[in-house]
């Protein structure tokens, strides 16, 4: 039947921070509640019909009292707001050395792919003490990747990438849930997050079917979809080279600059006319509807793997 637990396991650095925030919220609420309930009960007893206490000299001008209790409660609320906002910003600022793991939700399972190509379904193995960044998307409807023990969750939305990061602090196994209603088996779309000692984790990685890494698969797709036809070294088409692109700023037509991140790469494949690199003609065709989410992730992983490479041939001058 399970015991009457009050708190979930706390298995990430953020979880501990969250529990402090929870305690503060509880504390402020309990204080206000006790005040209100206490006064209500006190007044109901003291001033009940027929009681002989003094009722004269009632408060005339209420203005000062109103401002006082309004101001004080608002000040308390603002402190809580800033605390929570601060934590929220931190949840959304992954460290640069986080390992990227790709997660695709679909009715009704989670497909997880490690950068080395290891794949799992409904289970996520991670090493303790190392930051992990999840890149989430969905193949069909909106899902949500929720890990209560880490106190985080994020929607997996079809058509876009969302990210979530954490650093596990406790070895163990923790529940993973889907937290956005997605159809019949929504309640069964869960699994386990397995946090291991780094050595155990390495052993686990090595024991997985050593298929090609995501980036290697992406390289094969880069050729089979014809991307290398324009973006490869021997192309006669004036297309941007992708070596050294990922993570760097890209000046666009019209003056804006964007950073070439996962989203930019993905959108460039699906909606190439949305953000045209400055100096290049808008001739890239869209691959929307032709490349599934899995393959998109692999292409992104491949282009990411080129981040530290340089183009082999000389850059063609702009027209």
């Amino acid at each position, binding site marked *: *039947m*399970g*015991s009457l*637990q*009050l708190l*979930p396991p706390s298995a990430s650095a953020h979880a501990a921070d*969250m529990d402090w925030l*929870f305690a503060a*919220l509880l504390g*402020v*609420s309990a204080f206000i*509640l006790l005040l*209100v309930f206490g*006064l*209500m009960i006190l*007044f*109901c007893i003291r*001033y*009940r*019909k027929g009681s002989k206490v003094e*009722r*004269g000299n*009632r*408060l005339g001008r*209420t203005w000062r*009292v*109103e401002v006082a*209790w*309004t101001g004080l*409660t*608002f000040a308390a*609320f*603002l402190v*809580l707001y800033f*605390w*929570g*906002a*601060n934590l*929220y910003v931190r949840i959304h600022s992954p460290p640069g050395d986080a390992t990227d793991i790709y997660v695709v939700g679909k*009715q009704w399972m989670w497909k997880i792919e490690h950068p080395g190509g290891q794949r799992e379904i409904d289970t996520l193995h991670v090493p303790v003490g190392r930051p992990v960044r999840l890149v989430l998307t969905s193949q069909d*409807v*909106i899902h949500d990747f929720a890990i209560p023990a880490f*106190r985080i*969750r*994020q*929607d997996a*939305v*079809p*058509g*876009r990438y*969302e990210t979530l990061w954490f650093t596990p602090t406790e070895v163990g196994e923790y*529940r993973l849930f889907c*937290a*956005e*209603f997605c*159809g*019949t088996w*929504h*309640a069964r779309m869960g699994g386990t997050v397995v946090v291991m000692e780094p050595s155990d984790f390495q052993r686990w990685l090595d024991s997985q079917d050593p298929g090609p890494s995501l980036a290697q698969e992406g390289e094969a797709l880069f050729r089979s979809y014809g991307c290398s036809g324009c973006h490869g070294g021997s192309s006669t088409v004036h297309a941007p080279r992708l070596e050294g692109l990922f993570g760097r700023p890209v000046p666009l037509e019209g003056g804006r600059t964007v950073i070439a991140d996962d989203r930019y790469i993905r959108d460039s494949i699906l909606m190439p006319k949305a953000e045209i690199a400055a100096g290049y003609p808008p001739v890239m065709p869209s691959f929307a*509807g032709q490349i599934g989410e899995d393959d998109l992730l692999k292409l992104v992983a491949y282009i990411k793997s080129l981040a530290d490479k340089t183009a082999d041939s000389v850059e063609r001058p702009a027209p």
Partner: protein
Amino acid sequence: MTTATVTGKPEEPVVATKNYLTEGGVTLRSWLLTRDHKRIAILYTLSITLFFFVGGAAATLIRLNLVTPSGIFTPDIYNRLFTLHGVIMVWFFLIPSIPNTMGNFLIPLMIGAKDLAFPRLNLLSWYLYVGAGFLALFAIVIGGVDTGWTFYTPFSSLYSNGYVVLALAAVLAVGFSSILTGLNFIVTTHRMRAPGMTWYRLPVFVWSNYATSVIMVLATPVLAITLILVAAERLLKVGIFDPALGGDPLLFQHLFWFYSHPAVYIMILPGFGVISEIVPCFARKPLFGYKFVVWSSIAISVIGFFVWAHHMFVAGISLYAGLVFSLLSYVIAVPSAIKVFNWTATLHKGWISFDAPMLYALGFIGLFTIGGLTGLFVANLAFDVHVTDTYFVVAHFHYIMVGGMVSAYFGGLHYWWPKVTGRLYPEWWARIAALLIFFGFNLTFFPQFILGYLGMERRYYSYPPEFQAWNILSSAGASVLAVGYALPFFYLGWSLFRGKRAGANPWAATGLEWQTPSPPPTHNFDRTPTVSRPPYQYRPEPEPQDV
């Protein structure tokens, strides 16, 4: 209490034989074609009660299913049950509840008018409601919908195999009913007040319904267009909400919540109005800080339009959007806090009695405060990331909607029962029901806060075994709550035939509605009243007839 008019002179209960129930015909036709706001209010009360029990039946089955981790229903049935529960309770119970029953009956009386500005529009509102209700029941009976009351795309537009379009049509129709009611109330409040009834002499109940009506007329049209877009996408397989078709699912969420967040204020503001009438009466003291209470309602109505994306903190909105919407959500807590403080302060140095309406009102203040405080939890960005879509949120909104609004509804029902029916309800049964409801409610929903923080997700027909203990407690509470809700149905029904006759003013309350017989005549007042004093002119001392 024996009856008394505002001047304090006791009088024998006058059996008002010529009243709105007996005048104007007693045939079904006279009721179905009535233009009398009081009869329309009764029609609404009957239909709303029906839907309350339909929604309640779904809730009963849900709590039954959640007693065991593996559930007793198949997931498809369970998913249809919670969708039914949400759709019915939100649109067919909560939103029309106080406005269309008590608002319809009392607003003209409270302002000294003979009817609302547009009586035929009022009747049309009811027919739209009933028509929509038939559509909804039909959709349920032929197989139901499983999208949740929130209809998120692309699940609802492309993947669900429930009767989505029918459900959308039902909600569209009831939405128009809501818009027309709001329009009627706004024009009535502006244009039909009796001589001397200035804005600052209006009872807070009228102000609350006015603030509610502003939201109804401005927010509901956005819902209408959103539902049309989803229906069109589903029928034509073209649309702006599914990425596979080139659309954006977040666009749906923004459009949906732009209505649905203000909608929750539609659902609670009238409750604030009822409490603001009951507490001064049973504390025999003017409402503390009348102007603050009034303007806090308007503030909630306005600010409520600017917080919708706090439902989307993990949906994929930008960091900056999150920061802004969370801050505004904290701001909107302030006016609600003001009200709670003011009601409590009204009790100070009062002359307090504990009739059933007051018990419901006190219960409201307690349960709404808990619900409102937990609103601060979910408004908190980091905290919400952990608890959104869990039972924490479910508990939060049930504390406000059920602990708050339904308590206010029952409180108002009991308070104005003598006025509407000319009968007194049996006081002890009413108090027992009020206490059962308070106790049963807390037992049902408090464990859900704990479940939510532990990580139990919403809309789950089955759950991991470690959550069972709290679920059993919650379901046990639900059984007590069910008894508490069923009781009034019986004793109020009984009182219609056997209850003691009520006079014009059994509570010795202020307010124009008490200045006319119980039940009122069709034309409300024999002579249009003139108003010269502020509302809530109570004094915390024994009534003359008690001496």
